[in-house]
């Protein structure tokens, strides 16, 4: 048996717990899940049906664990794992499933196909079949956590530049972006670049929030790899920072997988409940709106605007009504996509696909249902509270000729705040980003 196969089977056996065993055993192959998958809707081939994809791992599982399958493999479709098959399974798990959970929600049995695909990703990663780019990004994040001092000075400089922009935006020369502030109430974890820092900083400044900016980025590429040990190391940087600063809560920027990982999975990696809360900035803004802490002018956003539910935030995270409460307060022509909320289609860019150049064609093709939804809505602006969704919908806009702008929720909130320096700062930045995203 090749080493890669041995390693992959070792991972399968190691990860075999009750939820995984149930997902492997319970499927009746009724096929009712097919149309729940955006890959199948875009291209109705059986290979795109969740049951078919999950069955590929079940074949391997049966060959290893099922008595009848070992005696009569053809009877149950059991297939022993080979190096060639492992490569095929890896390609499928990384490129033909975005772990969006829509199939599970639509399955009468509740088969957790994303769990099966995550297991396959773990098997592939451990045996050297994981996408190189995701591995590089995950390893780079871990390295950064080992010696943050190396880049801290550079980060401070860029934050100082951003502070000037913030002061211009808010019209407050005292406005600041606190870094490593001990005892702050909130640790805000942004993504790389100013676009998820500046709008959030303007909102925090306006409501008088006691916050500090994390020196790390929220993205966790270990999650995409299905590699819990890497994912834990990446999360550990932020968890340790939160503990050192003594914050009450970690707030994750508008990033679906980062929120999902830190909010719902990370406590399980560390084997302990956190002594701080974890929320998405969407929830925090919704709270500010509810408490009347932001003065908002919905006429600042008069365009037809729709909201795309990120799978990680909505169906897998329960952040469903909060963005809608905010949008009600900041827009005059809000339109729902159909279906929406926990029934929303995945945009096709999730689970790391946006970062993998080889997946470009497949993600544009699988995003067709989302593109059609957006077109039917007649919206001119799509709000998405997830960076990967924004990048994907921007690409879909170009590919399918939707001609829509794609923005984060915080961008529109800042616009509705009617800040004195909005035109010169955020709007110019947004225009630049939308044009980049739309290409």
């Amino acid at each position: 048996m090749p080493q890669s196969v041995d390693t992959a089977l070792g991972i399968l056996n190691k990860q075999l717990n009750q939820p995984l065993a149930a997902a492997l055993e319970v499927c009746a192959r009724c096929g009712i899940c097919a149309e729940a998958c955006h890959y199948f809707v875009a291209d109705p081939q059986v290979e795109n049906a969740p049951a078919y994809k999950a069955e590929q791992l079940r074949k391997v599982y049966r060959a290893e664990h099922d008595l009848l399958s070992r005696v009569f493999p053809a009877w149950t479709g059991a297939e022993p794992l080979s190096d060639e098959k492992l490569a095929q399974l890896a390609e499928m798990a990384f490129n033909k499933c975005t772990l969006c959970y829509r199939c599970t929600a639509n399955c009468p049995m509740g088969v957790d196909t994303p769990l099966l695909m995550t297991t396959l990703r773990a098997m592939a990663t451990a045996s050297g079949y994981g996408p190189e780019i995701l591995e590089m990004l995950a390893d780079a994040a871990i390295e950064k956590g080992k010696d943050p001092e190396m880049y801290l000075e550079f980060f401070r400089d860029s934050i100082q530049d951003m502070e000037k922009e913030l002061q211009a935006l808010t019209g407050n020369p005292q406005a600041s972006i606190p870094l490593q502030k001990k005892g702050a109430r909130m640790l805000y974890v942004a993504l790389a670049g100013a676009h998820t820092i500046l709008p959030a900083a303007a909102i925090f400044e306006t409501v008088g929030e006691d916050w500090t900016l994390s020196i790390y980025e929220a993205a966790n590429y270990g999650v995409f790899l299905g590699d819990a040990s890497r994912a834990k190391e990446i999360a550990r940087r932020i968890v340790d920072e939160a503990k050192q600063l003594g914050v009450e809560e970690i707030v994750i920027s508008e990033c679906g997988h980062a929120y999902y990982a830190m909010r719902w999975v990370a406590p399980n990696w560390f084997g302990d409940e956190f002594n701080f809360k974890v929320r998405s900035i969407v929830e925090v803004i919704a709270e500010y709106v509810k408490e009347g802490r932001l003065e908002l002018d919905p006429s600042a956003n008069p365009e037809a605007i729709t909201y795309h539910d990120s799978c990680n935030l909505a169906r897998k995270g329960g952040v469903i009504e909060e963005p809608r409460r905010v949008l009600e307060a900041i827009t005059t022509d809000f339109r729902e996509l159909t279906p929406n909320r926990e029934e929303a289609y995945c945009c096709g860019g999730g689970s790391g696909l946006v970062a993998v150049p080889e997946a470009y064609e497949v993600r544009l093709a699988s995003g067709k249902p989302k593109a059609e939804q957006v077109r039917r809505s007649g919206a001119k602006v799509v709000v998405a509270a997830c960076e990967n969704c924004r990048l994907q919908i921007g690409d879909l806009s170009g590919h399918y000729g939707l001609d829509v702008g794609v923005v984060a929720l915080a961008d529109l909130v800042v616009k509705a705040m009617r800040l004195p320096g909005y035109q010169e700062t955020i709007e110019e930045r947004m225009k630049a980003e939308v044009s980049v995203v739309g290409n």
Partner: protein
Amino acid sequence: MTLILFTQIFAALALVFTLAAFGWRLRLFNALARPVDRSTPKGNPRLGILYAYTLGMAPWAKESTRRHGIAYLRGVAFHLGIFLGLAILIVSPWLYLLPVAWRTLLALGAALGALLGLAGFITRFAEHNLKALSTPDDYTAVLVVSLFQASAGLWLVFAPALPLFYMVSAVMLVYAPFSKIRHCIYYAYSRLFFGKFVGSRAVLPHSQQGAR
């Protein structure tokens, strides 16, 4: 020993075997780790579990079952027919005490289950995508279970068919733990995990989410 007694003993032994085999499978399953979710719930996991076993199974609860309502209800009725067949098997020695009208009603229920099973078998064979998903075990499982229901119905209206009913039951019961039929014991767990997931995150039921 009469043929009825012989086949009855055979079916009883098969029932004991299948219960033991399922018990063994459940023991293996329960020996596996069940991960503890240490994240702070946003919603109510218990409400989610309750939903998963009740309203979450309603034909209108999911896009897939709304879209394929007839196929879904066919499946539900087929499975209800299986439980009816099992109930008939267990109380078969005393069923002669029931009035003919009741026996006929039960026979109709079992026959309907068998017909719906047969319809499922044909669909699996005829529909391109479903066929591609299916293994010989899938066809056999549906066929054996449909025959089980048909033989139950036949015996209720035609007494000499009792040995046939027992023999078919025995075959189905022995085959069940090795085949796809065993999904029945994992179903409860799968729904439990699903319910906990969506309940804890306040995704479902909708009442957890406030403005709906």
